[in-house]
């Protein structure tokens, strides 16, 4: 029995090894066998499906960073406001009701969010921005990013709230005894004490945004261009992978290998983020 249990647990290692094997063998061996690594990271054109294919990953990365940036600029302020409110101000009953309800936001299938971004948020933004002289295209990273931001609010709010609640009450009491208000206590005592956990939560949310596929595929656009403004359309790393897969996957070609190269870039990004987030959260857990 113990052996069986061990094998089940070891499956996790097998999956990680499997992912690394597949991505590395396709990306490193096949892709970088034909495309120079230098072109991959310094090139500014990504056109693997053209007759004269070019493999500069920069357009996909700018798309990913732009949508992530928009998402974070929504999710960080809102998520942290909610976290501080729930942890320092709300009654237990309020917290127990709001927290799980907010977590439902993370449970909505991402393809549904994609629909919402494309057919609700984009028209709304188009109307709102027209008076300002900005013509928002039907596909744009702004609405994809906004909706992505709403999606990751619960990740950031929930984990930050956990971090803040882990701060011992003695510190709050000390602050109150010195005459500080709850708000002052929250931002000058509790927040700094929980900051590594909070940063960890934000990075985890960021990692979610970077890896999110369906919202950007549906609402963000699919043309890989260097993105400089959120009102542009643009393809992300994930959107490119999905887009190639939506056609008939050309097994064994360089185009096929290119989705694994893009996957490798994505994997590295998220692994680094996750590692930092994990290390930070561990630090805050050890602090008290």
């Amino acid at each position, binding site marked *: 029995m113990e052996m069986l249990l061990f094998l089940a647990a*070891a499956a*996790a290692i097998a999956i990680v090894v499997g992912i690394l094997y597949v991505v590395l063998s396709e990306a490193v061996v096949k892709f970088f066998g034909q495309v120079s690594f230098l072109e991959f990271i310094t090139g500014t054109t990504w056109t693997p499906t053209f007759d004269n294919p070019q493999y500069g990953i920069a357009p996909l990365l700018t798309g990913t960073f732009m949508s992530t940036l928009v998402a974070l600029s929504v999710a960080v*302020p809102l998520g942290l406001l909610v976290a501080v409110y*729930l942890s320092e101000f709300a009654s237990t009953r309020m917290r127990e009701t709001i927290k*799980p309800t907010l977590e439902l936001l993370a449970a909505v*299938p991402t393809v549904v969010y994609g*629909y919402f971004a494309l057919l609700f948020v984009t028209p709304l933004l188009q109307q709102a921005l027209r008076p300002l002289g900005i013509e928002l295209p039907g596909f744009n990273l702004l609405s994809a990013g906004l909706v992505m931001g709403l999606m990751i609010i619960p990740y950031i709010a929930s984990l930050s709230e956990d971090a803040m609640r882990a701060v011992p009450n003695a510190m709050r009491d000390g602050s109150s005894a010195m*005459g500080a208000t709850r708000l002052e206590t929250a931002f000058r005592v509790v927040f700094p004490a929980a900051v590594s956990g909070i940063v960890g939560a934000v990075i985890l949310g960021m990692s979610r945004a970077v890896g999110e596929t369906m919202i950007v*595929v549906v609402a963000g656009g699919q043309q890989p261009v260097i993105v400089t403004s959120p009102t542009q359309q643009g393809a992300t790393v994930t959107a490119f992978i999905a887009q190639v897969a939506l056609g008939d996957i050309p097994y064994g070609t360089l185009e096929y290998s290119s989705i694994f190269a893009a996957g490798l870039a994505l994997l590295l990004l998220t692994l680094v983020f996750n590692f930092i987030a994990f290390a930070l959260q561990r630090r805050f857990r050890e602090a008290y």
Partner: protein
Amino acid sequence: MSAVDVAERGDITAHPPGLATRRFKDASFIVWGIVATIIGLGTLVALVSELVHDGGHRLSMTFFMSFPSSDPEIAGILSAWVGSILVIATTAAFAIPIGVLAGIYLEEYAPKNWMTSAIEIAVNNLAGVPSIIFGLLAVGLFVQVFDLGQSILTAGITLALLILPVVIVATREAVRSVPLEIRQAALAVGATKWQATQHHVLPYAMPGVVTGVIIGISRAIGETAPLILIGGLTFVAFLPITRPGDAAFEVIGAVDEYGAPVTPDATERVLIDHDGVVVMPDFSEMPVQAGQTYDLPHGATVQSVATWSDAVQSWAPQNWLGSEFTVMPIQMFNWTSRPEAEFRELAAAAGLVLLAITLLMNGTAIWLRYRLRKQIRW
């Protein structure tokens, strides 16, 4: 401090200057907190009302019982929801046992060594891997190397791997919360470690495990990206399983892609199992009866109507695991990406169904967790 000093400073219990402002800031923060919360919850409301507004009127029995079609008036999600059920059943069959056993191992059995830390690192990292990467794994390994095809089996396993960390972490937390005394009591009366785990720890941990499983499965139901890579088809006008009343076809002998027999003059002795009709290669028809044997030329087709027992037989996993499939999120994605408004109504209707399922499952999980916390007092 002399009496004079006190008199000079006045009433020391009076509010220090600026306190009113500080209190005002404190109170107004609550407003900000509530506003932020309302934006979050408002999103949910907006989402649901948008879907209801766009697609609510398309929800009907026909919608659930029709295949997708190029005519939006008669299109439905039959193949999608049947596909989703089959894929999710496969996912559950892999993810639940492996995830629960792995969770038990890590909490109850795992020695403190490098192997255990490696497993823990793997589980933690898997939880953060973007879902589309699992699609790459599926294409590169299951489809290309293991040759499982773009099938329900491939899709089911892929989603199982995706939700494995969720099930493992939930199981670990549930098992960890069972007090040590329960184990000690079982061991003290002579139970083996596995008996103690199976009969005493696991039952107490069950609500927590079930919560994790529900959340994991709900995530698998809504997952789209990895299945796009596997090649979940967007237009599936067949079911991997048979329904009673479905027409059943059996072609005699080998035929080429146009339906013409490879060996035109050969015949085959066939035992007919249902009443039906045989369509000959020259398109003449011959009624046949169950239990009789006929010598039929290659290229003939035996047509009959599936009975309940045929249908039930077709539900055995080996009959559908290898089949191509579509699932609800892919069907919704397909309709969303079409420009015609009618298809977007269908997308909204499919989205409503998806949303209802996932929110219901998550609601159940939350309720279970809440009840669990209330009921158990160690």
